């Protein structure tokens, strides 16, 4: 039996709890209802989800100019952007390898083998967040990261700026591209980003098919497209025309790299999660996965069919799929239709 005094104490506690509460935000208990699975989209509806944009994508705070793009192209291919004068952006993002490097893992300063594969920069201009773990919020920011990283290009920006200022031709090119702004990290990043936004995949047989040319791809590839959007659940992450949701998922690879989890230690689904890579030109871009551990598209499909390591962080869409041999072949045939006929990239005569 409570005394009268303890009754008033109890009321006071309740009053405090309901009126003052604790400062900040508090998460309450969840309610759960069942969600109906999405109605299956028709083939025509699916095709519409993958239509390519008709314009390039430049942000308001760094609009396109030909002078910026030309300067950015010079910088992109210039090995003076590395401490040892040996590596340029194009060393790891080489147009001959669909803007990656063909290696399982990137190779940086002093032949240092990096922890992750070099991602292709193809279509990066349409991206929302950059690097495998999303640590760069813009292409401008991303461009400056590897230059300075000791294991990658190993060049402090002040040293780079000194080199560019000493060059006979670069100061005038910066003046043209950024009148009155000079050579500084911001203008270097903006120039490289402007050039990178011109690196866009070419229309591929898949694009001709979704526009109505039934002969553009094989019947196997057409079945693969349906599997990609259905039984395979590939489209849950590899969505829209670049085949990426610019989001982070654990696909069950066994390596110890926690990826996005480094920045979000309290988010279960961020552990072992990496940004979904786009699939344009994918047949030309082995090795695969963030760790370069898978050599062929067939082996990629085998990995997803097996489901990888089952752990709390693993994406819901990744689980054993029960694909038949024919279905696996169809998925590979579909992915092979995503390579366009890229025209050769002309390497610039660099300023001296």
């Amino acid at each position, binding site marked *: *039996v*409570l*005394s*009268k005094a*303890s*009754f008033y104490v*109890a*009321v006071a506690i*309740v*009053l405090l709890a*309901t*009126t003052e*509460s*604790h*400062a*900040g*935000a*508090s*998460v*309450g*208990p*969840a*309610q*759960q*209802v*069942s*969600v109906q*699975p*999405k109605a299956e989209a028709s083939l025509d509806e699916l095709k519409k989800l993958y239509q390519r944009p008709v314009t390039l994508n430049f942000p308001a705070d760094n609009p396109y100019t030909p002078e910026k793009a030309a300067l950015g192209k010079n910088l992109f291919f210039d090995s003076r952007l590395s401490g040892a004068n040996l590596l340029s952006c194009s060393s790891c993002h080489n147009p001959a390898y669909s803007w990656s490097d063909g290696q399982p893992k990137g190779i940086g300063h002093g032949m240092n083998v990096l922890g992750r594969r070099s991602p292709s920069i193809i279509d990066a201009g349409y991206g*929302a*967040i950059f690097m495998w773990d*999303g640590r760069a919020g813009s292409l401008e920011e991303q461009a400056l990261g590897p230059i300075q990283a000791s294991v990658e290009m190993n060049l402090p920006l002040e040293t780079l700026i000194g080199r560019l200022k000493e060059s006979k031709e670069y100061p005038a090119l910066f003046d043209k591209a950024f009148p009155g702004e000079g050579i500084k990290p911001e203008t270097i990043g903006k120039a490289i980003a402007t050039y990178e936004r011109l690196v866009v995949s070419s229309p591929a047989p898949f694009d001709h098919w979704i526009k109505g040319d039934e002969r553009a791809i094989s019947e196997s590839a057409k079945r693969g497209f349906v599997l990609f959007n259905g039984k395979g659940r590939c489209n*849950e992450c590899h969505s829209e025309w670049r085949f990426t*949701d*610019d*989001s*982070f*998922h654990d696909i069950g690879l066994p390596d110890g790299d926690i990826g996005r989890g480094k920045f*979000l230690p*309290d*988010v*279960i*689904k*961020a552990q072992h*999660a990496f940004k979904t890579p786009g699939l344009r030109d994918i047949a030309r871009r082995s090795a695969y996965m963030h760790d370069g551990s898978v050599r062929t598209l067939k082996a990629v499909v085998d990995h997803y069919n097996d489901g990888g390591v089952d752990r*709390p962080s693993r*994406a*819901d*869409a990744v689980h054993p799929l029960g694909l038949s041999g024919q279905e696996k072949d169809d998925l590979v045939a579909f992915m092979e239709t995503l390579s366009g006929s890229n025209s050769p990239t002309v390497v610039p005569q660099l300023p001296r």
Partner: protein
Amino acid sequence: MKYQILVAAAVGVLTGAGIALAADTTVHQKGKAFSQKEITLKKGDSLTFANDDTITHNALSRSAGNEFNIGAQAPGASTPVKFDTAGTVDVICAIHPQMRMKVTVE
């Protein structure tokens, strides 16, 4: 015993009053997007995050004074978050960071 009943009644009335006084608004997560880009609440209001997608989401904020992390939220789940500090709260989905919204707490 009489007082226990009174306390229980007081708790019920007071917390019930708390719920009634504070607005409870719902923001939906569907098609990898929040249904509202901006929303204004009063201090003490709750905002319920409903996952209407067929994939897991994870609403989260690191805004000082209003940090919260819903955690992995399964399809069909609704989770209330109560905001007790005035200020601007930038909310993202930790899995799909292009999902962004702003909550202003007055």
